[in-house]
């Protein structure tokens, strides 16, 4: 595992150095690599955090495939698809924002950051509509839950077991809810980034917070890339 060791600081302390360089780092390079590595490790914890849910989903899908298919059919896959496209576009605008920062195109950077936040809000909007539909159809687990007489896809004469369907909806709400929560946190991060960019903090030499924010946003997008097929498209074929 050869990796960069601290470089002996050739220049003494009184040279002109970046105000954002923290005292305990030798060079900007070391600080940037450190925050990059730190972010990737944080994403590792997030992968395992969602991993526990995917494990529960995998087990119950293995046990109750038919009921999961019936419950998944009741969710609007088109909305899910649009949401995926929205998140992919937001990932693009994040990357373009970073590119703009690297090539010091301040205007484009600000526009891209604003677009990213706009896409994030549209995603939450669509998600809100989905939750509202679920609420009206009484598919929210708990007292008001009802899932009577819903046929299992491929077996028209057989009805899904409401309790197993409730487990699907429990997992659906916990997984997409946790994802939406991460999306809200992402919007918070990007509004701070927008403010910092507005203040002109980011230069082609120093744009680490943008890079870190970008990594987080892309991770949230990747989680959704997996959530979409697994939750929405379990048993859609006729």
């Amino acid at each position, binding site marked *: 595992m050869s990796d960069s060791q601290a470089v002996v600081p050739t220049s003494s302390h009184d040279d002109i150095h970046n105000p954002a360089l923290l005292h305990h780092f030798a060079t900007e390079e070391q600080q940037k690599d450190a925050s990059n590595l730190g972010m990737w*490790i944080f994403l590792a914890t997030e992968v395992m955090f969602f991993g526990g849910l*995917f494990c529960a989903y995998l087990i119950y899908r293995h046990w109750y495939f038919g009921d999961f298919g019936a419950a998944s059919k009741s969710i609007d896959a088109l909305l899910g*698809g649009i949401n995926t496209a929205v998140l992919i576009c937001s*990932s693009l605008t994040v990357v373009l924002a970073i590119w703009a920062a690297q090539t010091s195109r301040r205007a484009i950077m600000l526009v891209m950051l604003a677009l990213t936040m706009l896409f994030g809000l549209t995603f939450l909007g669509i998600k809100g509509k989905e939750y509202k539909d679920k609420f009206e159809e009484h598919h929210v687990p708990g007292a008001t839950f009802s899932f009577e007489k819903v046929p299992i896809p491929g077996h028209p004469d057989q009805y899904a077991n409401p309790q197993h369907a409730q487990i699907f909806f429990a997992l659906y709400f916990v997984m997409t809810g946790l994802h939406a929560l991460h999306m809200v946190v992402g919007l918070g991060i990007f509004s701070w980034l927008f403010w910092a960019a507005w203040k002109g903090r980011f230069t082609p030499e120093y744009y680490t917070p943008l890079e870190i924010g970008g990594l987080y946003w892309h991770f949230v997008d990747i989680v959704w890339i997996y959530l979409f097929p697994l939750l929405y498209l379990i048993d859609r074929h006729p």
Partner: protein
Amino acid sequence: MHDHSKSSPLKTYFMVWGALLLGTFLTYEAALIDLGPFNPVVALAIATTKALLVALFFMHLKNASERLLKLVVASTIFFLMILLFLTMTDYISRPWTIAS
């Protein structure tokens, strides 16, 4: 430290963006065709390629200077697989009776 200029040209970004949208469309269409047991396999394959595209190009993993970041990602996926597959060993083998 980095071999080539940090920002890869816009062309790559837009190509990756297009591929991702295409992937989403493919996932949606593939789900509508009855492939029997292969439906989940296809869905996961497309999702994994999309995730790799985002990770390699958008998250600049591809031109990351040293192998440490790739190692972090690889070991995370390895441990996730442990969680998923070792738990499944129990759930798959529960109905088997001892053929004594």
